[in-house]
């Protein structure tokens, strides 16, 4: 009897360890929820939420190119030349322009180098920014909302009908080198 209990106990422990390992392994490289401190506590909540500034006013490149881009500092000054110009945080922007050293923001969303993602075809294709980036208009500090893993990409594309197993509908939808090159 004692032997059986010990055996069962051992099996449970081993099982738990394996499950832990699998759960941990699945997290490797997954940065969902990443929410780093930024050199300037910029709030998307104030800008995009309360003041309802269109995302594409600052992230204008998202319609045209591969990356949405950090807006040029001068673009911030379009408004902040007038608004809250005495704030010490705005002072950091002025300082950056004066010293010709751009603000070193901490990158939140980062895909591995072997993934090619193009914002413009998604934005022009009518995908809402929030669909991937979450409720940005309510974030005081920017947070990675989605997992940005390949499975996450494919789930959405499957729903749209242009990823395996439905990829016959659109050319090249499910090809590896659609994104990996």
């Amino acid at each position, binding site marked *: 009897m004692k032997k059986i209990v010990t055996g069962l106990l051992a099996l449970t422990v081993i099982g738990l360890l394996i499950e832990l390992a699998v759960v941990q392994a699945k997290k490797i490289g997954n940065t969902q929820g990443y929410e780093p401190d930024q050199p300037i506590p910029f709030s998307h909540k104030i800008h995009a939420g309360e003041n309802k500034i269109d995302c594409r006013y600052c992230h204008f*490149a998202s319609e045209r190119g591969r990356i949405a*881009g950090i807006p040029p500092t001068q673009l911030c000054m379009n408004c902040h030349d007038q608004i809250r110009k005495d704030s010490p945080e705005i002072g950091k922007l002025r300082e950056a322009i004066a010293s010709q050293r751009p603000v070193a*923001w901490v990158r939140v969303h980062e895909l591995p180098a*072997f993934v090619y993602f193009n914002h413009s075809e998604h934005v022009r294709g009518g995908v809402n920014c929030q669909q991937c980036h979450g409720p940005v208009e309510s974030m005081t500090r920017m947070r990675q909302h989605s997992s940005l893993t390949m499975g996450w990409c494919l789930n959405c594309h499957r729903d749209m009908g242009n990823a395996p197993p439905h990829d016959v509908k659109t*050319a090249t939808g499910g*090809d590896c080198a659609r994104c*990996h090159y």
Partner: protein
Amino acid sequence: MPLLKAPLLEWPRDWKVTMDDKTKEAPQYWQSIEGQSVSGTDEFPSGFVEEMFDVVNAKKSRREFLTILGFSVAIPTLTSCNKIPVTKALGFLNREEGTVPGVANWYASTCGGCEAACGLLVKTREGRPIKVEGNPESPHSRGGVCAVGQATVLSLYDSSRFVQPLAEGKPTTWAAIDGRIPELLRTANSQGKIVLITGRVSSPSTLAVIAKFRAKYPNFEHIPYEPFSYSALFESFEKTHGLRSIPEYSLSDVETLVAVGADFLGSWYGPVAFAKDYSAQRDVNKRKGAMLRHVQVEALMSVAGSNADLRVPVAAGEEALVLVALLREISKLSGRSIESPAVQMDGRLLATVRTIAADLWKAKGKSLVLSGSNRVDDQMAVNAINELLGNIGRSVKLMPAVDVAVASDSRFENLVSDMVGGKVSALLSIDANPGYAYYAPERWKNGVSKVPLQISFAEARNETSKSAHYICPGNHFLESWNDHALGGGKYGLTQPTIQPLRATRMFQESLLRWAGETLDYYDFIRSHWKAHIFPRQKRQLLFEGFWSQAVHDGGIDVGAASNAKAAFKDPRLTLDSAKSEGLDLILYQKTGIRDGRHANNPWLHELPDPITKVTWDNYAQLSPETASKIGVKTGDMIALQKGNINLSLPVLVQPGLGGNTVAVAVGYGRTECGKAGLGVGKNAYPFVVFAGGEYQRIQRGVQLTKVSGHYELALTQTHHVMEGRDLVREVNKAEALSTKTAVHSAEKGQPSMWPEHKPGENRWGMAIDLSKCTGCSACVISCQAENNVPVVGREEVLKRREMHWIRLDRYYSGSESNPSVVHQPILCQHCENAPCETVCPVLATVHSSDGLNQQVYNRCVGTRYCANNCPYKVRRFNWFDYSHDDAWGRMALNPDIVVRSRGVMEKCSFCIQRIQEGRLKAKKEGRKVAEGDFKVACQQSCPSDAIVFGDLADPNSEVSKLLEHQKGYQLLEELNVRPRVSFLPKVRNPL
């Protein structure tokens, strides 16, 4: 239980694996002398198997091995536990208009890689130039750019470039330089002569800057210096036509072309412009049967010679004899006698010359004779021949030498004498490196030691800047403004595509400052154009419009200044027919390294020479006959000796090299340059002779002795050999036109073991015309730049680990003494039934719906099964993490392509990033991707339009039409892998 019987594939009865009769008669091809004798029996060369296991040096004890093993397990485990690194994202402070992050901008410019000044389109990403391509709208080069031009983008990010001005070796500022140097120059002006040595200057504005400088310091002389000058060519027109002229050659109406020792498709004059017309004139299909005939008489086996219909190998010293003999024959045919010395030559050679002369005479007015010689008498003979044939004014246009300062060898020689005599008080140098390339280094050193003020404008450290007191580093051409007179009213503009990376300054700007001018060089060019070039045209009324158009197009054609009419004067020719003991030495420029100025560019060092297929070295080429006479093989060391000049070099036995000749490339053996070029090869410039007013690159009476030692040359010609199968095909002109002779061998429609792929919306394919490919290798460097292909170095090339995605296989056929050559670009064939795909255990190489064979780097675990199973040997394995850690060099990387890491297989992707870009462009415009939306990198750079890429699903695309060509064939059709790359055979036009 009964055994399940596997269904037998039913083979059609009439299907044969054997070749048809036509191919049995085809010439036997071989790639190297060694390969010819062993014909593939030596499956692994000696030491190859051992080498395979040499990743961790095998001579380790068991204990050491275990230590290494332990570490190699522990390191990845530990490193993978690290948290994901924090990355910083930097935005622009102020966005330049037109720059969108992630979107490329293109600028038209003019190449500064050599004197040819081809038109360029420069691709920039986030303000960094990352690729140059030929500008199809350039009136001068008309698209395409050579290997050297492609590689200039890497030179821009050369980390050995000067970062700031130096005074007596100490860092200083431009303000300090500008404060000090005018004063020193004033003193120098009163004490002696101020000399500026440059390369060839074809920039009207630079010449105007130099004139300003001269006005300030009247005791001044400008001496252009080119180690491989065209001094005799330019001089000869003055003697025969009374006109100092820069000739403009045009093959667009030529039917017979005879080149004597001129590698016009490799390094002579302007290879890109030549290749464009050459391939168009030889396109027997498009021209409905007409085809240019090319005869090459030469000692060296050159790129041009390898394409000739008739190639006559002669000893280097015989090239001059052939020219005079040709002149005598033409003069006989034309009935106009021209005084020329009697020629004594071999009867068979004379008979060949007669045949060539008769062929030229048949095509009079539509022919061209070229010579690469730097003897004025040789060039005068060529002028006389062209005159008698009525070619002057047609294929040879005499453009008056305005706005151009070309090198004159005798003037440079006088300068060195003046320096030795202490008459030169200041020496300024830019783009010229006599400290390395001058034939008598001791004399140069002696001369330099007597010049009290030396200023160098060099971009990077070189032999001439070594002794300079002041270094005032100039900009790379991609950081500069400049203009170029291209002859006949054509002007090119160079515009900066990036801010200067370091505290450097255009040398013209320095000269303007020191001459007391306040204009910067950009404004100076504009004012010069406004005064001198703008008035010569009528299309634009306002200068601003004219200027914007010129900047946008990368140049402008203001209409031809008249094709100068010049009266022909009979030349008085002399001939050096003295017998000499020993061999004839010919110095030549390699396609990549040229005269040595690009010696710090690793891409060009690793580019296999189009003919010899050697990387990273220079060597002494001997013909098989000469080599066996001396008793040497490839890799043996020999010593060349003439007078007190000695040089020991490894031998390379080169089929087709002229008898009694040894050929050595210059440009190697640099002693002062960055780490890539330092100590690579040996300097052969000391063998140059100054004779008859010019620097002679052919030296007679060189003694050759075998010395001990062996040096393994990093040859790629024996790598990836396809074991003597039927890979290159050739036909003559008549066969090409006949509808009967098909070169297809295996029949199409073999049964396949695999299910057919579902046809996608597009089916990408490529057609390569072997008849147009000249072997120039521009595609290799273009691909390297586009796809972040690493450089591996000499040691790794020796281990067959070069990484080029496209290679040029060079096949010989016929005798060793004078073989015919075919160049064949080989890249991934994107097979329908790809053998690599079936063996990959992790599905890292798969077929896409548009027919590409895709390599998925992030899936690859590096089993290398695919490479083993590839019949074309086009897959490349990353044995190491190849160095991309140079902070400057990294900037040349294409951000749209991942840098592959160690343990990953890679290969040609048909430039998937360009396909995607074209597709995206079409998608945004709401249409299907069409022909012309994009071009793949090799296709874009090809100066002779040999590569055509497109959509096979579109029956009207150019590639579809070429594929239907009945002479088209695919490689190893009998394997039934169904490649997506198709070849058209080499067409020859024999005499």
